[in-house]
């Protein structure tokens, strides 16, 4: 299933400055794996070695906060990868 991913500027060094990307997968984990295939190294900055979303990153699938990478995707969905506001 095709998914649109929006990333913030903190990840532009991986995407060549592109904020809107297209990946494939049936759940968020697969989408991130495909993102990493297309932009090597990007997944490890978002998700740690345990598979946990890093403390200062937030993923939103459309309007919903993603807390489990196993969340299934639906056609036409958009995944937002955000640097979570923390500190001043």
């Amino acid at each position, binding site marked *: 299933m095709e998914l649109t991913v929006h990333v913030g500027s903190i990840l532009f060094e991986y995407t060549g400055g592109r904020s809107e990307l297209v990946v494939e997968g049936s759940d968020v984990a697969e989408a991130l794996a495909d993102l990493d295939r297309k932009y090597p190294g990007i997944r490890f900055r978002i998700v740690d070695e345990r598979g946990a979303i890093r403390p200062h990153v937030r993923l939103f699938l459309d309007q919903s906060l993603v807390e489990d990478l196993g969340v299934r995707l639906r056609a036409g969905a958009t995944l937002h990868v955000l640097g979570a506001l*923390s500190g001043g």
Partner: protein
Amino acid sequence: MAKKKQSTRRSKAAVGLVVGTTKGVFLLEASRSRRGWTQRAPALLGSKVFDARADPRRPEHMLATVSGGHLGPTVFRSTNRGRTWTEAKSPPRFGTSKSKKPTKRGGTRGHTVAVNFYLAPGHSDEEGTWYLGTAPQGLFRSEDGGDTWSEVEGWGHHPKWHSWTKGGADASPDGAFLHSIQVDPRDAKHLFVNLSMGGTFESLDAGASWSPLNAGVAMDFFPGEPPEFGHDPHSMVQHPGDPDRLYQQNHCGIYRLDRALGTTWRRIGERMPKSIGDIGFPMVPHPTDPERVWVFPMDGTELWPRTSKQGKPAVYATTNGGKRWQRLDAGFPERDAWWTVLRQAMCADDRARGTGLYLGTTSGEVWASRDEGQSFACIARHLPRVQSVRFVRWS
């Protein structure tokens, strides 16, 4: 993989200082005379850099540890003296556990690397080999110039790792770091690592097995006799002039250990002036003379302000293995300078005579001495907080 272009300018400088800061890497360059330092545009701007250094075996090559901010920790490499930087293909990461959580027997498995903290080039015969210390207290090794990293499992999966590190607990104010990785210049298999809140550990078999090496070191924060481990080394060096001579700046004083004579550290900081004390972070060896080291004392009284003592910065030097200490403060502010110098932020160069001494401050300055600390001059200011200063010779 992230790539960053910093500058196309080729440098003809003979020597440099690689300065790691909370906002990126700054390269200072000079001619062979070590005068007229110039500052290059920042690299990795916006990244929190705990350590950055050139490879003494291939000095055009550099590594920088990047941590903090929103994204996870990683490593950047340059193979052209800092003109361009590329992210490591496989940065340090711990193994996973079945439960996805740390266990008492699992060592580092199930933990997450929070900080890539300390870089050490491997043995001179092992080109491309590097070691890296993390928080929690992991030890990683690269054999390809820092592009891919593997955990030294003899350390991280050691059955006592959980005890030695208190389960990787963040027990010290700035993090549970593994630091001061030392590779014996006579034997690539002989290693030392040091843990904040853990102590000094030694391996004779390239990291396959480890033993604590803390006898004689005080633990003022611990009631009763100090145990075998749990100490708090701030910096430890194997002296390049005599690898059997170890020096340590500890949370509880300055120590020396003549390894050929035994395994018990001897406190040499008691010869420091009582008004200054013997608490600090850096420990810098002279390049050839094992009787000589430099330290930078800080205020370790009561609430531990961790500033220069009385707001009057000074380096202290010994030329006789710690029997006497000399205050060196010419050129530094004479008062109201409340900065200090962090663990990796002070170094010497490679000249046996007229040794250069360099230090970066928590207030973003870099100071240099061309006369072994007899006088200092500020060679860079208005930088972010300096976390590491490493000397490099290109020609």
